[in-house]
């Protein structure tokens, strides 16, 4: 699978994307870049610069674009929705501005979901692993609570634990600290750093926060659908 450059985690070539509603508008105007394995990358830019749109193309959820996208050397442009869903399940973890946890499930169940879907481990092993990742995020006491009963910072950390459960090669974040106070935001950044250093995971985050961007290995700045730097 990874026959190309072993160090490249993600590669986009000449990416172009249009919005058609309310009128045809080119959001991304030909973007190309590579992300290395273990790199902590941030994408910054003003509102409407196309940075979030770019992230959703990279996430494989948005398939309506021109150009090509490869993750871990695997060409994903042109794959069908089911293949992409299976790929996301195994290789990509998501952290969003809002936690998007399932409120009726316990923290532990939320974290277990992607691994149960992947089905590579037995439910017992998945549970152990989920518990371990909650521990890593300092949440072992909250495992059996419904996520609707947790604080905002705790919810975001559960969401991160969920993103980590399948040991994805890439973690993508859309304003992962956007809804957190500075203390919790600091904690999340800390966690991300540890992940890249200790586990060699690649992280791509869209952010507004200049402090957050400062703390990353590389920052891509976008304006009007193009990369500035």
């Amino acid at each position: 699978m990874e026959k190309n450059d072993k160090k490249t985690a993600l590669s986009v070539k000449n990416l172009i994307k249009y919005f058609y509603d309310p009128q045809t508008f080119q959001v991304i105007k030909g973007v190309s870049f590579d992300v290395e394995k273990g790199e902590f990358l941030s994408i910054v830019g003003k509102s409407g610069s196309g940075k979030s749109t770019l992230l959703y193309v990279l996430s494989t959820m948005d398939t309506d674009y021109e150009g090509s996208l490869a993750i871990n050397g695997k060409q994903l442009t042109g794959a069908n929705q089911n293949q992409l869903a299976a790929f996301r399940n195994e290789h990509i973890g998501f952290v969003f501005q809002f936690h998007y946890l399932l409120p009726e499930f316990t923290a532990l169940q939320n974290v277990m979901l992607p691994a149960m879907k992947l089905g590579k481990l037995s439910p017992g092993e998945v549970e152990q692993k989920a518990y371990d990742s909650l521990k890593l995020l300092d949440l072992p006491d909250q495992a059996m609570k419904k996520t609707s009963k947790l604080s905002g910072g705790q919810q975001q950390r559960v969401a991160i634990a969920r993103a980590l459960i399948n040991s994805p090669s890439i973690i993508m974040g859309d304003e992962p600290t956007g809804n957190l106070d500075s203390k919790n935001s600091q904690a999340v950044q800390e966690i991300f750093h540890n992940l890249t250093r200790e586990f060699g995971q690649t992280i791509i985050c869209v952010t507004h926060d200049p402090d957050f961007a400062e703390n990353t290995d590389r920052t891509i700045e976008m304006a009007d659908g193009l990369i500035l730097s």
Partner: protein
Amino acid sequence: MSKNFKNTSINRQIASIHLTAKIWQTVVAVLGVTFGVSMYIFMNSFMNGVNSAQDSLAFSTLGHVRVYNDDHTNPYDPAKVIASSENTILHLRNKKAIQYTEGIKNTSQIISILEKRPEVTGIAPQLNFSVFFRSGSKKLNGTISGVDVEGEDRLFGIGDKVVSGEWEDLSFQKTGIVLGKVLAEKLSVGIDDPVNVLTSDGNSRNFTVVGTVETSVRAADASKAYVNIASARQIEGENYDYTSDIQINIRDRNATEAFIREIDAAIPYQTESWQTANQQLVAASELRNIIAMAVSLTILLVAGFGIYNIMNMTINEKIKEIAILKAMGFSGKDVRNIFLMQAFIIGIIGGLTGLLLGFGISSLVHRIPFRIAGFDTLPIVYQSIDFILAVVFGIVTTILAGYLPSRKASRIDPVVIIRG
């Protein structure tokens, strides 16, 4: 295989958490199906009860198939054969129809043909004719049924309807007569009292009352009497093998058509099924079945809309969760299955509780007193096919109602929802 299994199990887990999280919503959805299914069972069992009560009313005097001799079936007109040319002027004076044959002269031969058929469960020869009943100065007209005492009882259970005296007395007391209860009251006679019978041919004979009978048809009770068939033949001056009707019961009373087709060639008389003789009965029971079907399916339809609504609401509520499930790698098919599974579980639970409730309602209704025309309580007849169909309809309705919302859920685009 194992991967598929695990997918199903996680989908099932999500579905069951959805169902239990808002338990009242689930209960309301289940109750919709429960009521639909139970009404289906109750309506159909009740209609079955009414139909079979109606039928047994009809079959208290009528066999499934009747053999008789109808002398109006021969269109033969000798005058037309002789003078077939159009140029011939034909003048007939005082034209009269001749009665060639009346009744069935060779009853035992017909019965022996019928007895060989395996589907025949009972045969009762009858000799029916109209008479005047006389007692003192009272004179009432009515009909006499000369019957095979044992056969009549086997076919119509007439012995159970005798309210005073003994039915069996007819078989050895050749001058015995069993009168309709109302007829006996009108003649003011009781057991062992004499009754004079006068036929249309002017024959008169005295009988002794050995019993009175009360059927559920008042008109019959006021005009009908039973005597031994041998006495009936005597008073009518007919031979020992003469009958006017042969009533036949067969195993499946709905299969009369096929039975008639098979015996028609072997029997030189007319045959008539109960359906032909009582088309109003058949029509009424068909109509009742249609009403039962329409009412219960309407209830199921309403339940279906309720489920559709609840599922749609749930999906709108959980649209972000669905988006995140898809982002995490659940396919559209997984999402659809999660919601279809919920519909299916609602259908199964609703179907089974509806089964019990339907049975409960029916057995309660079966105890409600209803003392008209031979009923004691409201009639209920259970048929396993009604129970099976009720559950099948219940589950099918739920799945159909759940399908559209599930499909909608499976098509949710996570990008649109998550980006807001």
